[in-house]
């Protein structure tokens, strides 16, 4: 087990190293000199040159790469256009995205698990068709469009919810205030639509799988009430894959957050990513990509370990 974890962590570093090299190469291929962009219009060649030297853009590629990555870790690397260290700007934006993501996940689970459950229990009935169709629609709708529609319905037509920004916050969190909570509704609902659909389908599939097992037959045969069979025997076992799968949805969640945050002017990491790309701020882009990948890799490892914990039959040695 221990050896497995070590191996996984090593693999994780290989992935992160590969990613950083890939992103670095892509950024280096970008047309347009960042020094010129930073110097602004009408700058003299001397100014541009001095900025280039300051950023180390005149060094060979491998030195630049090393500078960038080591700078990320010791906090010396400045975001080019924000004039603060990269970590600082990422951590400033982190709570907003975490909040949005967790609320979206919460809404998604509250809706999707009962929906998937009903769909599996009443298999091939109208309920099932309804749930599966709605779930497929949820996967098909682009989140930014869902957000726009929600904004039009609740923000413009009925004027019951604010349509952009985060509202009042306590510390870095906005769900603690009523105003902030109201601001949270539309973005998290929009973002949850995709997760809802994915989790409802997963719950349904997992539940159907469990209902085919022998022990369900046994439970029924010994005369247990159907509700006990379904909820106690089947549901609890069906939940394991669904819950562990949540960890694997982080990438979907973040891709959705990039778009939702842009639509609803939610000041999180997703919007930071778009801003940084538009400003050609490669330090921030690289930092964000690595940060996100690291979080995802750790989550994937945790999910794998959770399988062992949930199901003792699995072992990785």
């Amino acid at each position, binding site marked *: 087990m221990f050896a497995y974890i070590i191996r996984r962590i090593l*693999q994780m570093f290989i*992935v992160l190293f590969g990613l950083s090299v890939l992103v670095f190469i892509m950024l280096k291929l970008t047309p347009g000199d960042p020094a010129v962009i930073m110097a602004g219009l009408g700058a003299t060649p001397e100014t541009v040159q001095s900025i280039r030297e300051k950023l180390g853009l005149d060094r060979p590629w491998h030195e630049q790469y090393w500078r960038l990555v080591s700078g990320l870790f010791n906090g010396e690397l400045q975001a080019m256009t924000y004039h603060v260290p990269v970590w600082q700007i990422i951590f400033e934006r982190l709570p907003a995205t975490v909040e949005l993501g967790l609320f979206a996940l919460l809404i998604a689970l509250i809706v999707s698990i009962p929906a998937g459950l009903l769909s599996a229990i009443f298999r091939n009935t109208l309920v099932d068709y309804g749930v599966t169709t709605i779930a497929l629609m949820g996967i098909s709708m682009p989140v930014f469009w869902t957000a726009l529609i929600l904004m039009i319905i609740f923000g413009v037509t009925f004027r019951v919810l604010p349509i952009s920004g985060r509202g009042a916050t306590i510390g870095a969190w906005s769900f603690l205030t009523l105003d902030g909570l109201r601001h949270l509704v539309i973005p998290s609902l929009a973002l949850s639509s995709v997760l809802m659909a994915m989790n409802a389908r997963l719950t349904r599939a997992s539940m159907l799988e469990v209902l085919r097992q022998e022990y369900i037959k046994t439970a029924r045969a010994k005369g247990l009430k159907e509700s006990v069979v379904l909820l106690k025997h089947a549901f609890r076992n069906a939940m394991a894959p669904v819950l562990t799968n949540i960890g694997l949805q982080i990438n979907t969640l973040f891709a959705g957050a990039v778009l939702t945050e842009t639509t609803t002017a939610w000041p999180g990491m997703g919007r930071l990513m778009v801003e940084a790309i538009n400003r050609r701020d490669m330090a921030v882009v690289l930092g964000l990509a690595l940060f996100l*990948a690291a979080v995802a890799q750790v989550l994937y490892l945790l999910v794998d370990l959770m399988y062992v914990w949930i199901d003792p039959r699995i072992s990785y040695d």
Partner: protein
Amino acid sequence: MAYILSLLFPGLGHLLLRAYRRALFFSLLMLIHGGILALAVIKGRLGWVAVGKVPERYLPGYWLSTWILVGFFVLIWIWAIFDVYRLLHRKEERGQSYWQIVWRRFKKDAKGITGASIVLVMLYLALFSPFFAQGDPIKMNFTAIRQPPSLKYPFGTDHFGRNILDRVIYGARTALGIGAVATLLNMIFGGILGLIGGFYRGVADAIIMRFLEILNSIPFFLFALLAVSIFGSDPITLMIVLGIFGLQPARIIRSEVLSVREEDYITAARAIGVSTWRLIFRHVMPNAIASLLVTTTMSIGVNIIVIAGLSYLGLGIKPPTPDWGYMLHESQEFFRVAWWMAVFPGFFIALTVFGFNILGDSLRDVMDPRLK
């Protein structure tokens, strides 16, 4: 005799052979395409009709659709005659092939038929957009800015007075065109990587898998975003970028190859000295084709959503090309006063992707040999 009748009008020959359902099918095909032809002639947009009557810049688009329509008519004729040939030379009842079973099951699957219809409608909108559109999708009309939906403009007009219905119809072209080509590239690159990885295993496989892991470590959408912001976003670049980074098929092919390569018939084929390429194409590919078809269908949907997302952020298709994502980008500024600018393009994205998704879902069901 049946041939001559079929030559006159597809489906007539079938009447003689008492294949009434097939006759109906062919006449329906003729009716639909005839309708499109009539529409094109009435609107004066068929290539030959339009020459000299409309501005030069419209002509290439009109000719393209015209030739595609002509091509479709030729195909229907050939298909009808071939079908008559098949009916006349039908052999004794043979066993059913896998694809016949799949087709029979697919016909009964309401989900699949709905999905296929949605996809077909979108495909036709894309291929024949000049015939269906009311006018020019990029012509601005400053006397009709942000008109709400009305009889004249069923979907309203945007902030430049452009007809949203027309833009949505032409948008199908952009979305399906780029989506389909990108997916094709996904299949080619992913397929090759998956085959190499699964077949040769060892070092090649390890490198390919690590590479895929790196690509998967951040969302596909972010890679696309990054790549597009770097390499630019004219349609060709967009296709290539999406084509290269969406390598999901590689995993599927690889696992398919891995499961097949241990089978006895592969060992047998090897033993009689079959070459590697023949082995791959004759023995491994047919087994992988089902899951490949499902992935293809689904990835077109994914690619369409990704393209829309990129354009929505202003990093994809550039104006004035009509594109659903970019239309939503423009609507962002006006959604308070002009809801129709946001609703219709998004609805078409959702509908198209929904079509591909349920089609893929249904294909997965009908092609699974375990579900009989």
